C-alpha cells in the first residue's frame, strides 16, 4: 500500500511536469502587440506579441486563418519587413536561447534561414538593400559594449563580410548617397595607464561591399544636433565645456574621404534649436536666440559660409520647417513692451483709463506720466483717437511696464492674478529688468483683459533663397501655439489653444478651447477659423482635403463627469465643419482614415467606425470590458483586422460584423516555467515530508523563543488581571500573513479562554473582523468556556492606517493590556504601536514578513518572529505532525535554494551565465 502511494505520488509529479513542458512547446504569444506589417497583395498581416518568449504570427485576413507562428525573443520593437513573399524579422535583443533573426515565407511560415546574434542588447538600425540586410547592433560581453555592423545575404542568411566592430556605444548611423555607411559611435579606448577608459566620439565610414573602414574621424565634444548627410557633406554641431564655459562648434565633413571641410566656433550664448533643415543641399539652422542661418558648410571663410542671416527678434519654439522655398519658424515673443497692434480694443482701453474707478485701473492712472494723462483727458470720444495720441498712450503704458513699483498689494486685491504672476511675485527681490517687464505685462493683461492682446506666439515665413520675410508682418497666433504648423494644399494650418471663462462668481467655469486657423501662405491672410471646446491629443489626420481632429474633453452624463473625445471633420478648403462625432469614452488609438471611414478604438473596449461623408456611426464592435485595441488596423477588401490588449485578434467586416476572433494568448506562460518547476519541487518536498509525518516519523523542531513566550505573556496578563491585545496587521484576509496571524490567534485565544483572561482584537478590515470573531469563538468553544466569549471584544475600528493606529493606541493607554501581540502585515504604523505598547509596560511579541518593519519590532518588542517563523508558528503551536512535516519540507526547499545560489555564484564568477538565463523570468 505504501509503495503504491509512493509511486502514485511520483507518477502525478511526472505527469504534471510533462504536461507543462508540452504546453510550453505549444505556447502562443503574450499580450501587447508590436506594430503589424501588412502585405496588401496577399492580405496577410504579420504581428508580433510584445512579451517574454514572444511569438510572431502570420494571419491571413482574407482566409480568416492564423497561417503560422514563429518564436522570437522579446518582440518589443521587433523589425518586421515584408518583401517578395518573404518576411524578415529582426529582434532587438538576445534573450535566452532563441534565434534573433529570421527570414520566413509569408504564406507558410517556413523558415528560410535563422540566426542567433549572441549577446546583442539593443538593435539600432536595419537597412534592406536588393540582396543584403544590414544590421547595426550593440553587443554586450561582460562589461564591454561593442557596436557591430552586419551584412547578411537575404537569400541564405549568411554574412557577406566579417562584421565590422568597434568598442563603444551606438550614437547614429547615416547612409550616404552611394549606399555606404557612416557610423557615429562613442568609442572607448584604454588610456596609457591602462586603468581608465577614454571616450571619444568617432565618425567612421564603412564600405557597403567589404565592411571595411574607409576612414575614421575622431570628433571632440558631444553632439548637440545629430549628423545629417546631404549632397556628400555631413553636418553636425558639437559642444564641450572648457573652464565651465560651453563651447559649440559647427562642423562639415566630406562624406567621401572624411576630410574636414569647415569648422566654426558658434559665438558664446548661441545654441541651435533642433535639427537643421536643408534647402538645395545646404542647411538652415535656427538658433535659440532667434537668428536663422543659411549655410554653405563647404566654405572655410565665415563671410562666404553664411549665405543669409535673419534675426527674428523672438524666441523660436519650433525648429524651422521648409515647404518648397518657404521657411516657416514659430517664435515666442520675449519683448514685453506693448506694441500698437497688440491693443485689441481702443475704445475699452480709453474708457478704462479715463474712468479709473477700480483700485487696479486707478494704480495705472497714478503711474501714468502727466503728458499721457492730459492726452487721455483731452479725448472726449474714441473717434478723436489718432496715430499720435495712440502712440502717446502706448508709450505711457510701456513706462509703467518698465516701472519696478507697479505692483502694490492693495491695488490688486480684486484682480484675479495668473499663476505666472504669483510665481514671479514670490521671487520679486531677485527679478532682473526683463523679468520685471514680464511681471508688469502680466499684471497689465490681468487688469485690461479684453483690451490688450495676451498672445505671445508668432509665425514667420522666410524666402529660403534670400532669407527675406515673405509676409508684411509675422502672423500673431491667438492663444498658445499647439501643433506643428503645416501646409496642406494652398492652406497654411495653424493650431492653438486657449482658456475661456464662462459664468460669474461661483458658477464660473474655465474651458479649454482649441482653435484651427487656415492662412494663405502667400500673405498670412486668415482664410477661415474654427474653434471648439477640448484639448488636442493626437496628431491631425488628413485625407482628400479633409482634416480630422480628435479633441479630448470632459462630458457630464447623469451627474458624472467623465473624459471623452470629440471627432471633427473640417474641410481644409473653406473651413466648414462637415460633421462632428461625440464619443462617450476615451479614444485610445490613432485615427485610421480609410477610403470611406475613420476607424478607431476606445478605452472601454469598442472598435468604432465613422463614415467619412456623413460622420455617422457605421458600427460599434464590442471587444470586451476594457479590452482596448492594441495594434494598428489593417484593411483588405471588405475586411479589417486588429489585435486587442487581452491577446485576441479580430477580423470584422467593414460593417462591423465579427467574422473571426483568434485567441492568441499562450496556454502556458513559458517565461514562468522556472517558477512552475520551483513550486513543483517545493510542493513535492513538502508533500513528501507531510506524508512521512502522517506515517508517524518523529521530526525535530527547534525552539522558537517568541512562541515559547506566548504562555508566559498570557500567564502574566492573567496574574495582573489585565487583558491581552492581539493585532492581526493592516492587510485584509486575502493576505497570507493575515491568515497565518489568524491561525496563531486561534491558539492564543484558546490559552486566554483557559486562563479566563479577556482578549481584545481591534481589526482594521471588516472581513478580518468577521473571520477573527469566528476563530476566537471556536477557540473558546474548544477550551470549554463558550460562556466567557465576548463578541464585542473583537471589533472593527477603521480601514484608515493612522486612524487605526490612533484607535489601538487609545485602547493600549486606557485598558493597559499586559500582553500585546502584533502578528501579520505591518507598514509604518509598526513602530508607533510597538513604542506605545512599550510605554505601557506590556510584554510584547511581534512577527511579520515585512523586512522593512522587522528592525522596528526588534527594537521595541520583547520577542520577534522573523519572516518564516510567522508561518511556522501555527505548526509549532499545534504540534500537529502533518504541519511539522511541512516545516521539514520547507527546510529541504531552503537547502535546494542554497545549493542553487552557491552554484549560481560560482558559475557567474567564471562568466558562465546559462544558469542565470535558465532561472530568469525576464
Amino acid at each position, binding site marked *: 500500500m505504501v509503495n503504491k502511494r509512493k509511486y502514485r505520488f511520483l507518477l502525478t509529479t511526472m505527469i504534471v511536469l510533462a504536461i507543462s513542458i508540452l504546453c510550453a512547446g505549444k505556447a502562443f504569444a503574450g*499580450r501587447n502587440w508590436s506594430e503589424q506589417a501588412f502585405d496588401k497583395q496577399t492580405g496577410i498581416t504579420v504581428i508580433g506579441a510584445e512579451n517574454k518568449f514572444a511569438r510572431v504570427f502570420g494571419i491571413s485576413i482574407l482566409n480568416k486563418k492564423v497561417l503560422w507562428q514563429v518564436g522570437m525573443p522579446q518582440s518589443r520593437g521587433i523589425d518586421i519587413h515584408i518583401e517578395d513573399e518573404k518576411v524578415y524579422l529582426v529582434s532587438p535583443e538576445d534573450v535566452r536561447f532563441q534565434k534573433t533573426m529570421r527570414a520566413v515565407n509569408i504564406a507558410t511560415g517556413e523558415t528560410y534561414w535563422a540566426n542567433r546574434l549572441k549577446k546583442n542588447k539593443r538593435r539600432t538600425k536595419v537597412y534592406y538593400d536588393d540582396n543584403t540586410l544590414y544590421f547595426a547592433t550593440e553587443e554586450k560581453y561582460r562589461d564591454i559594449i561593442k557596436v557591430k555592423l552586419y551584412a547578411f545575404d537575404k537569400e541564405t542568411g549568411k554574412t557577406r563580410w566579417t562584421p565590422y566592430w568597434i568598442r563603444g556605444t551606438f550614437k547614429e548611423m547615416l547612409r550616404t548617397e552611394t549606399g555606404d555607411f557612416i557610423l557615429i559611435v562613442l568609442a572607448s579606448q584604454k588610456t596609457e595607464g591602462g586603468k581608465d577608459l577614454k571616450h571619444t566620439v568617432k565618425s567612421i565610414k564603412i564600405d557597403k561591399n567589404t565592411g571595411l573602414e574607409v576612414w575614421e574621424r575622431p570628433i571632440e565634444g558631444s553632439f548637440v544636433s545629430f549628423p545629417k548627410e546631404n549632397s556628400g557633406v555631413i553636418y553636425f554641431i558639437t559642444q564641450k565645456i572648457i573652464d565651465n564655459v560651453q563651447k559649440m562648434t559647427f562642423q562639415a565633413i566630406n562624406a567621401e574621404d572624411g576630410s574636414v571641410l569647415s569648422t566654426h566656433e558658434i559665438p558664446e550664448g548661441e545654441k541651435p534649436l533642433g535639427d537643421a533643415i536643408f534647402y538645395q543641399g545646404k542647411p538652415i539652422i535656427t538658433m535659440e536666440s532667434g537668428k536663422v542661418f543659411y549655410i554653405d558648410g563647404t566654405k572655410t571663410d565665415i563671410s562666404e559660409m553664411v549665405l543669409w542671416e535673419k534675426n527674428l527678434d523672438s524666441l523660436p519654439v519650433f525648429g524651422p520647417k521648409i515647404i518648397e522655398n518657404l521657411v516657416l519658424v514659430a517664435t515666442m515673443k520675449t519683448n514685453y513692451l506693448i506694441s500698437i497692434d497688440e491693443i485689441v480694443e481702443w475704445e475699452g482701453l480709453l474708457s478704462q483709463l479715463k474712468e479709473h474707478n477700480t483700485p487696479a485701473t486707478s494704480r495705472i492712472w497714478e503711474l501714468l506720466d502727466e503728458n499721457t494723462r492730459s492726452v487721455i483727458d483731452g479725448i472726449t470720444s474714441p473717434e478723436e483717437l489718432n496715430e499720435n495720441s495712440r502712440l502717446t498712450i502706448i508709450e505711457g503704458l510701456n513706462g509703467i511696464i518698465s516701472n519696478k513699483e507697479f505692483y502694490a498689494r492693495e491695488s490688486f486685491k480684486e484682480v484675479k492674478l495668473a499663476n505666472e504672476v504669483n510665481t514671479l511675485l514670490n521671487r520679486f527681490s531677485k527679478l532682473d529688468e526683463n523679468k520685471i517687464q514680464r511681471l508688469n505685462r502680466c499684471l497689465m493683461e490681468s487688469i485690461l483683459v479684453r483690451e490688450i492682446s495676451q498672445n505671445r506666439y508668432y509665425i514667420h515665413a522666410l524666402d529660403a533663397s534670400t532669407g527675406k520675410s515673405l509676409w508684411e508682418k509675422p502672423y500673431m497666433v491667438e492663444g498658445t501655439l499647439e501643433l506643428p504648423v503645416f501646409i496642406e494644399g494652398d492652406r497654411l494650418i495653424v493650431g492653438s489653444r486657449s482658456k475661456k471663462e464662462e459664468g460669474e462668481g461661483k458658477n464660473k467655469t474655465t474651458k479649454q478651447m482649441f482653435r484651427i486657423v487656415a492662412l494663405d501662405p502667400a500673405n498670412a491672410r486668415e482664410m477661415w477659423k474654427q474653434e471648439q471646446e477640448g484639448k488636442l491629443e493626437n496628431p491631425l489626420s488628413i485625407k482628400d482635403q479633409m482634416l480630422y481632429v480628435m479633441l479630448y474633453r470632459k462630458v457630464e452624463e447623469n451627474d458624472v463627469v467623465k473624459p471623452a473625445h470629440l471627432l471633427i471633420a473640417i474641410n481644409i478648403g473653406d473651413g466648414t465643419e462637415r460633421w462632428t462625432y461625440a464619443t462617450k469614452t476615451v479614444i485610445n488609438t490613432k485615427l485610421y482614415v480609410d477610403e470611406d471611414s475613420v476607424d478607431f478604438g476606445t478605452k472601454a473596449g469598442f472598435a468604432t467606425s465613422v463614415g467619412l461623408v456623413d460622420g455617422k456611426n457605421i458600427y460599434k464592435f464590442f471587444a470586451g470590458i476594457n479590452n482596448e485595441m492594441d495594434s494598428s488596423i489593417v484593411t483588405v477588401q471588405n475586411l479589417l483586422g486588429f489585435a486587442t490588449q487581452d491577446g485576441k485578434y479580430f477580423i470584422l467586416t467593414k460593417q462591423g460584423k465579427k467574422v473571426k476572433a483568434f485567441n492568441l494568448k499562450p496556454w502556458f506562460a513559458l517565461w514562468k516555467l522556472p517558477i512552475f518547476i520551483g513550486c513543483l519541487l517545493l510542493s513535492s518536498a513538502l508533500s513528501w515530508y507531510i506524508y512521512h509525518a502522517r506515517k508517524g516519523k518523529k521530526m525535530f523542531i527547534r525552539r522558537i523563543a517568541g512562541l515559547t513566550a506566548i504562555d508566559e505573556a498570557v500567564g502574566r496578563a492573567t496574574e495582573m488581571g489585565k487583558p491581552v491585545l492581539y493585532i492581526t496587521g493592516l492587510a485584509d484576509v486575502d493576505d497570507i500573513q493575515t491568515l497565518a496571524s489568524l491561525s496563531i490567534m486561534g491558539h492564543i485565544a484558546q490559552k486566554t479562554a483557559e486562563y479566563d483572561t479577556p482578549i481584545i482584537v481591534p481589526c482594521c478590515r471588516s472581513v478580518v473582523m468577521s473571520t477573527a470573531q469566528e476563530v476566537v469563538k471556536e477557540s473558546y468553544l474548544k477550551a470549554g468556556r463558550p460562556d466567557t466569549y465576548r463578541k*464585542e471584544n473583537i471589533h472593527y475600528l477603521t480601514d484608515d492606517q493612522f486612524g487605526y493606529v490612533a484607535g489601538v493606541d487609545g485602547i493600549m493607554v486606557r485598558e493597559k493590556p499586559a500582553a500585546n501581540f502584533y502578528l501579520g502585515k505591518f507598514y509604518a504604523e509598526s513602530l508607533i504601536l510597538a513604542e506605545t505598547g512599550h510605554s505601557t509596560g506590556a510584554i510584547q511579541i511581534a512577527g511579520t514578513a515585512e523586512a522593512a518593519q522587522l528592525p522596528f519590532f526588534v527594537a521595541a518588542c520583547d520577542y520577534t518572529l522573523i519572516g518564516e517563523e510567522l508561518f511556522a508558528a501555527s505548526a509549532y503551536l499545534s504540534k500537529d505532525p502533518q504541519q511539522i512535516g511541512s516545516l521539514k519540507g520547507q527546510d529541504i526547499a531552503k537547502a535546494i535554494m542554497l545549493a542553487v545560489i552557491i552554484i549560481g555564484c560560482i558559475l557567474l564568477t567564471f562568466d558562465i551565465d546559462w544558469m542565470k538565463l535558465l532561472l530568469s523570468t525576464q
Partner: protein
Amino acid sequence: MRREIPMAITTITGVIMIVVFFVPMWGHWSDIFLKWFTVIAGFALVLGAGSLLLVNLNKISRKASGWGYNVILILGLFVMAGLGIFQGIKPGTPYDFIFRYIFTPLSATMFSLLAFYIASAAFRAFKAKSPEAALLLITAFVVMIGRVPIGEVMWNWLPWAKALPLTTIIEDWVMGCFNTAGQRAIMLGASIGIISTSLKILLGIERSYLGGGE
C-alpha cells in the same frame, strides 16, 4: 459540512488562481475573483460599521471612562456618511472640506509621531551592551553620518577619502552587501513559508483560520 464547504471553496479557488497564474488564456478569472472579493468586502463593511456602533453605543450607555470620545466617534461616523451621501464628495463640498482640513492633518500628526518613536527606539537599540550591539551601533553611526551632508564633508578631510568615498562604503558595502543579503535571506525564508502555508491551506492541513479543530 460547516468545515467541508469553506474548505472546498478555499481549495477550488486556490487551485484556480494557481492555474490562472500559469495559463494566460484564462487570466481574466483572477480579475473575476478579485471583483467577487470586493463585493464580499463591501457587504462586510456593513458588519464592520455595525460592530463599531455596537461597541461604542455600549460604552456610552455604560458611561465607561472616556465615553465622550465614543460620542464624537459616532457623530463623526454619521456626519461624514450623511454629508457624503446627500451632498457628494466632490471638491468644495463640506465632506471634502472636513476630509482636507480635519482628517488629513490628524492623519499626518499620527504619522509624524514616528520621528520621535524612531529616536526613542534607536536610543534603546544602540546601547553597546555586547560586541554585536557595539557592531550594530558603529554600522548605524557610519550609515547615518554618510546620509547627511556634514558626514561627507568630514569624510573628505581624511587622506583616503578619494580612494574610498563614503558613498562606496555605505551604498556598495554596508547597504549593498550586508543589508541586502540579510533582507533577501528573510524574504527567501518568508517566501518559502508563504508557499508552505498556502499549500497547507489548499490541502486542508491548516484549518485554524476557520476556527481550527476537526
